[in-house]
């Protein structure tokens, strides 16, 4: 049986794994290769390595550490950060990455998804989506449909956000999440990582409602991201949102959840995992 995947996400800067400390630089957690191997030993099914400064420094991923990780690691890994062209993606894959994940650049130029899928195959193309539920004011033309209190109706829905890595640049991308998910799939994405921003970093559980809505639209793998805080959260995201994988960062880095214990508990809860 196909196992559900547990995917630690590592933020990498200059070959080191770092933990963001708001606005005051980054604390180094360890060497990227060492940390990747540690998670491999603990039973991680896949890793995401995110070059956190690539986008803001206007460059692409540093292929040197991609190659170092590929040389050492014997589980799959995905590389994210600043990939803006099919050529850059192919360089990453040729350096040994199994997949590349694109987020803001795909919103800037959606054809990037098609180009990547054509050059490397859909199975290498992950589209990351930062999404949150919010109310947008309705256009003036429909404002007269106001509710009982005379307040203008709002468009409450899930909306895609862009440049979420940078607090000064983050903005709403002007797209409904459910539309963008389908478009990304149609353009050739092989997997969607849905980062539910309402839940991100608060460790109160994945956004099951949003994930379920997206899952119901998809026949490609969906990975949940944002909100993991306990084993129970992983159980419910697999049981209730039926995702292929669950991604998390801080609970693993801060050793709140130990992957071997998590996998044992998941198996006890009847969820197929690789032990």
């Amino acid at each position, binding site marked *: *049986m196909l*196992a559900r995947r547990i995917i630690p996400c590592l933020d990498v800067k200059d070959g080191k794994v770092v933990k963001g400390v708001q606005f005051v630089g980054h604390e180094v957690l360890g060497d990227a290769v060492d940390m990747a191997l540690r998670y491999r030993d603990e039973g991680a099914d896949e890793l995401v390595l995110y070059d956190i400064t690539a986008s803001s420094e206007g460059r692409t991923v540093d292929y040197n550490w991609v190659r170092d990780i*590929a040389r050492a690691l014997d589980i*799959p890994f995905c590389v994210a950060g600043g990939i803006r062209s099919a050529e850059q993606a192919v360089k990453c894959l040729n350096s040994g990455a199994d997949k590349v994940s694109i987020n803001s650049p795909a919103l800037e130029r959606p054809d990037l998804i098609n180009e990547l899928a054509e050059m490397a195959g859909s*199975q290498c193309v992950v589209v990351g989506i930062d999404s949150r539920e919010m109310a947008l004011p309705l256009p003036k033309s429909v404002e007269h449909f106001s509710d009982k209190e005379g307040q203008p109706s709002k468009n409450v829905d899930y909306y895609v956000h862009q440049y979420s890595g940078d607090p000064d640049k983050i903005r709403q991308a002007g797209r409904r999440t459910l539309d963008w998910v389908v478009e990304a799939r149609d353009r050739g994405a092989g997997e969607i990582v849905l980062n539910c921003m309402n839940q991100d970093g608060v460790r109160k559980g994945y956004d099951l409602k949003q994930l379920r809505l997206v899952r119901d639209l998809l*026949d*490609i*793998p969906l990975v949940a991201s944002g909100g993991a805080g306990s084993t129970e959260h992983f159980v419910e995201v697999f049981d209730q949102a039926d995702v292929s994988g669950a991604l998390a960062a801080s609970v693993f880095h801060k050793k709140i959840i130990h992957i071997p214990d998590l996998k044992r508990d998941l198996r006890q809860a009847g969820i197929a995992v*690789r032990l």
Partner: protein
Amino acid sequence: MITVIELGCANTASVLFALERLGVDAHLSSDAAEIAAAQKVVLPGVGAAGFAMNRIHELGLFDVIRGLDVPLLGVCLGQQLLFEGSDEGDVQCLGLIPGRVTRMEASKDFVVPHMGWNQLEVSRDDALTAGVNDGDYAYFVHSFVCPVNDCTLATATYGEPFAAMVRKGQVWGCQFHPERSSSTGARILENFVKL
């Protein structure tokens, strides 16, 4: 010395690195004469069957690969290329293993690509499957599948069973990525090295 065929598809580096981890002398080549003289050959591949077969023809490798009398291991798309043909681009493949590669039908319950760790069921004993047990996990990423037949060494099931490992004579194949399948994958590559 193992020669890894470089078709210009992505991912050949990972196979080379995995062999390096085993302490094996391996190198990349797309040169017909070099491949014809190789002691052992790996045919990796990620991407589309049509693109890969075109490259094989352009590089003059079609008859070279078909004529090899040393162990050959096809990995992922490389295994699919060993079959007679593929529905992916309706392309004629190498014809070293009987049968045709077909598309996995995506559904809500069985999302495609089939991506992740799935379990192997060993169909028969073979040098390549030595030490591999039923239920061992391997890492798969693919949207097309190879049929189960007399050449099947191991199956995996995703909706339907399909050929996860194959063998005919000196030709072997893995649908999964041994270079990304942790200790099980390393064992299989080591078995290939020892052939």
